[in-house]
């Protein structure tokens, strides 16, 4: 900084300059500002999804902190004595009563509570969409594999935050949710019974669980989420953001507006927009009206109740198990009706977590990748993603099987069987269709590069024949369509000792599966010779 001279009292120095010098001489912040302030930050609407997640988390922190001043995480029984007349005198836990007080006796309390809940739903949704964006553009490739793992961990932590928060008011619905957790845990072989006993401090429901979930919800989980977000963002700075292919953009540069001022203005403004949208939703739409459900009681339940959206896939997985999957063997109960969903979801999670490493192993590509792929240019990856989305969507829809059945006048059995098919066969169909669509789109791209785009101008030839005139692409547009890489299937070759290992063979077959039908980008020669390929 040129202003950092030791002379004081220079008459022309403005207040801001003096303040900056004062702070810098005590913090060395100038180096930091110089390093980060003018970094180029690539810009694209799809890069905003991560910001939505981050900003809704900030809203969650702000609104949640307010709620902690009023919520009391105790399961001691009281007779409700607040403003909501229909529940007056009803026996309930202090947790439930204080949640009702937040809603009916503290001005603006309902507003903050609803904003907190809506923000939580948005938080998990935004992380999910952000992860889909990362996946389908291949932005998880080297050097960003760890950040993929960190991000996915955040997704799971966010769901845990959501579930623990949902359970705190101790109302009928959240109590039923905990009952299901208790039943699930009890179904785990060997450790299940004792684990449930430890979680609930004795028998279900006990008098401990709300307090324990509260410790998790406001201390342990937020600390983890904040730590992982910090790590996630540090890596974004270290790696610099990816960018889509475009003229002038290379794997060796990052192109975009500088962090100060434009990116800061856009992101800072966007924070207030997210905050504002959540405020608007909270003002207009009721969420989780616990006063309609009443306090938790193990006996009553109402039909057609739904968990928060992000728990749906787990609830749906439980519903799709056919009858009879539980056995007594060796004098012990084996609850496969619980184990199979748990294991299936566990495998799904591990596959998602490991995907960057699996793909890196198949391609053997050790270079850094900073250009985000167009999904069509990685057809097999995109198709696998579509299969995963279908699997998840099938489980998720199953959580509403009863609503689907009553709404569309179907039988419960019919809906369950259809969704079982969606979960098991659906991924294969989605895989197949997506791959074909990707390849068709790639072929169309080649067509456009080779023969130009349709201009919409119809010309009549002397022979009476009509043709549509095709305009050639300019070099910038062409670059967007040809600047991608394709991979060849791996050739099996013997290693140094002249052997072909099983691992090699496996890798080669995966590689063939991935890259067999790839389409290569158009080359200069093809365009010049003017007769690329004819289909």
């Amino acid at each position, binding site marked *: 900084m040129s202003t950092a001279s030791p002379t004081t009292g220079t008459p022309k120095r403005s207040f801001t300059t003096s303040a900056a010098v004062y702070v810098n001489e005590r913090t060395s912040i100038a180096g930091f500002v110089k390093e980060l302030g*003018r*970094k*180029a930050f690539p810009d694209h609407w799809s890069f905003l999804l991560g910001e939505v997640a981050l900003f809704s988390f900030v809203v969650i922190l702000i609104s949640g902190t307010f709620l902690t001043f009023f919520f009391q995480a105790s399961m001691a029984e009281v007779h409700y004595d607040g*403003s*909501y007349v229909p529940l007056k005198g009803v026996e309930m836990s202090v947790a439930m009563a204080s949640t009702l007080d937040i809603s009916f*006796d503290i*001005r603006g309390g309902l507003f903050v509570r609803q904003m907190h809940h809506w923000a939580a739903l948005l938080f998990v949704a935004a992380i999910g969409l952000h992860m889909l964006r990362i996946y389908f553009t291949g932005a998880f490739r080297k050097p960003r594999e760890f950040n993929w793992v960190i991000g996915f961990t955040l997704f799971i932590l966010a769901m845990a935050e959501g579930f623990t928060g949902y359970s705190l008011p101790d109302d009928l619905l959240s109590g039923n949710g905990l*009952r*299901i957790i*208790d*039943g699930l845990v*009890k*179904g*785990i072989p060997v450790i299940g*019974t004792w684990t449930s*006993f*430890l979680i609930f401090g*004795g*028998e*279900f*429901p*006990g008098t401990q669980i709300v307090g324990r979930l509260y410790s998790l919800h406001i201390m342990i989980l937020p600390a983890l989420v904040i730590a992982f977000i910090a790590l996630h963002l540090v890596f974004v700075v270290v790696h*610099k953001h990816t960018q889509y292919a475009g003229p*002038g953009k*290379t*794997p*060796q540069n990052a*192109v975009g*507006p*500088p962090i100060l001022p*434009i990116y800061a*203005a*856009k992101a800072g*403004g*966007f924070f207030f927009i997210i905050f*504002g949208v959540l*405020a608007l939703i*909270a*003002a207009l739409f009721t969420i989780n009206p616990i006063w309609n459900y009443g306090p938790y*009681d*193990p006996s009553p339940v*109402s039909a057609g109740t739904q968990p928060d959206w992000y728990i749906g896939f787990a609830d749906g997985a*439980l519903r*799709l*198990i056919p*009858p009879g999957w539980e056995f007594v063997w060796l004098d*012990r*109960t084996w609850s496969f009706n619980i184990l199979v969903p748990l294991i299936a979801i566990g495998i799904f999670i591990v596959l998602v977590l490991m995907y960057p490493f699996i793909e890196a192993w198949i391609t*053997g*590509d*050790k270079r*850094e990748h900073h250009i985000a792929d167009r999904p069509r240019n990685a057809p097999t990856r995109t198709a696998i993603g579509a299969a995963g989305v279908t699997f998840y969507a099938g489980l998720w829809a199953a959580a509403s*099987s009863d609503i689907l059945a009553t709404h569309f006048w179907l039988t419960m059995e019919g809906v*369950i069987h259809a969704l079982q098919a969606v979960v098991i066969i659906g991924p294969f169909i989605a895989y197949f269709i997506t791959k074909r669509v990707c390849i068709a789109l790639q072929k169309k791209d080649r067509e456009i590069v080779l023969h130009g785009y349709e201009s919409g101008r119809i010309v009549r030839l002397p022979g009476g024949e009509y043709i549509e005139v095709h305009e050639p692409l300019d070099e910038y547009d062409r670059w967007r369509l040809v600047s991608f*890489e394709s*991979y*060849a299937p791996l050739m099996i070759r013997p290693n140094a000792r002249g052997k072909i290992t099983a691992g090699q063979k496996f890798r080669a077959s995966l590689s063939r599966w991935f890259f067999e039908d790839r389409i290569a*980008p158009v*080359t*200069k020669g093809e365009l010049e010779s003017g007769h690329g390929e004819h289909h």
Partner: protein
Amino acid sequence: MAQDDNSGAELAAADSSHAAHASDASPGTALIVQDAFENPGFPAHRPRVTDENPQREKRAQRTVYTLFYLSILGSLWAVAAYMLFPMESNNPGDVRLNNLFIGLGAALALLALGIGIVHWGKSVMEDVELVDERHPIGGSPETQAAAVKVFTDSDRESGFTRRSVIRNSLIGAIVVFPLPALVLFRGLAPQDQLPVPLLSHTMWRKGTRLALDPSGAPIKASDVTIGSAFHVIPEGLNDLEHGKLDEKAKAAVLLMRLEPSELNELPERKDWSYDGIVAYSKICTHVGCPVALYEQHTHHLLCPCHQSQFDVANHCEVIFGPAKRPLPQLPIAIDDEGYLIAQSDFTEPVGPSFWERH
């Protein structure tokens, strides 16, 4: 399609178009295309309307500060709404108004502020675009060598590798020291209770009267008409000082009366019902939700959680859904005053399965 014949010779270094930093990392099976197109470089910068038309720029500036003033209005309105819409009248409508108007004020304040800032950034700030060079994430070879040297130096100075006894005992101590902390967590569950006996018994005893949930009034057999269903708790549950919900979570029962001819009872349970009146645990054998929906004409019980269905006419066996076991039956009789009573506790654990159950 093009170049499908890959002999492996072509799989050398790809990415030839970017020689600047092309690292020597292996491209794996990525193909190099010999005559790939070259990156045409950045297109000419296109000015925005606000760059070219001073009137539009003026207008954009006006929009920005108008939005900021609107935001101030929104904040002030939210504060005013806090005072103008009280909710101390025990009237839910007032709560709704309070929520609505505080919320609309806050939303206006935040949205106008956010849109204003973004608009400033997009149409008033100079449209600067920068190009940063990326460097290999691993750092330069010199940096890497320096880091390696730090480790070898500190290893030599500390003797971490050489003094293996010290090192291994250190690792051992570090592995063991968290154990006491883990053991402390045993205290999450009570020390003086075991789960299995607790899960195997409920508060039903021989002679306990069946009572209505939630009032606790005992039920006379003569009050149970054919086709009706009652939600039942053991008499005395409501008087419990502690653990009322724990007991209720096990003891909740559904009472139904069918035509005795429609009941298909197991031979060993012939005397568990009374004149077509049967009592079954209400706690689902899947993961424990209350099985609360009774369809009178089919005699089916439906669990709303995962749609398991139980057939009351057929000793509550599962006819659909993920549950496996029938709902446990409570043997009942009547006492001399005509009230329904339990003959005993359930003869098996109620509710979700657990490992030790058999």
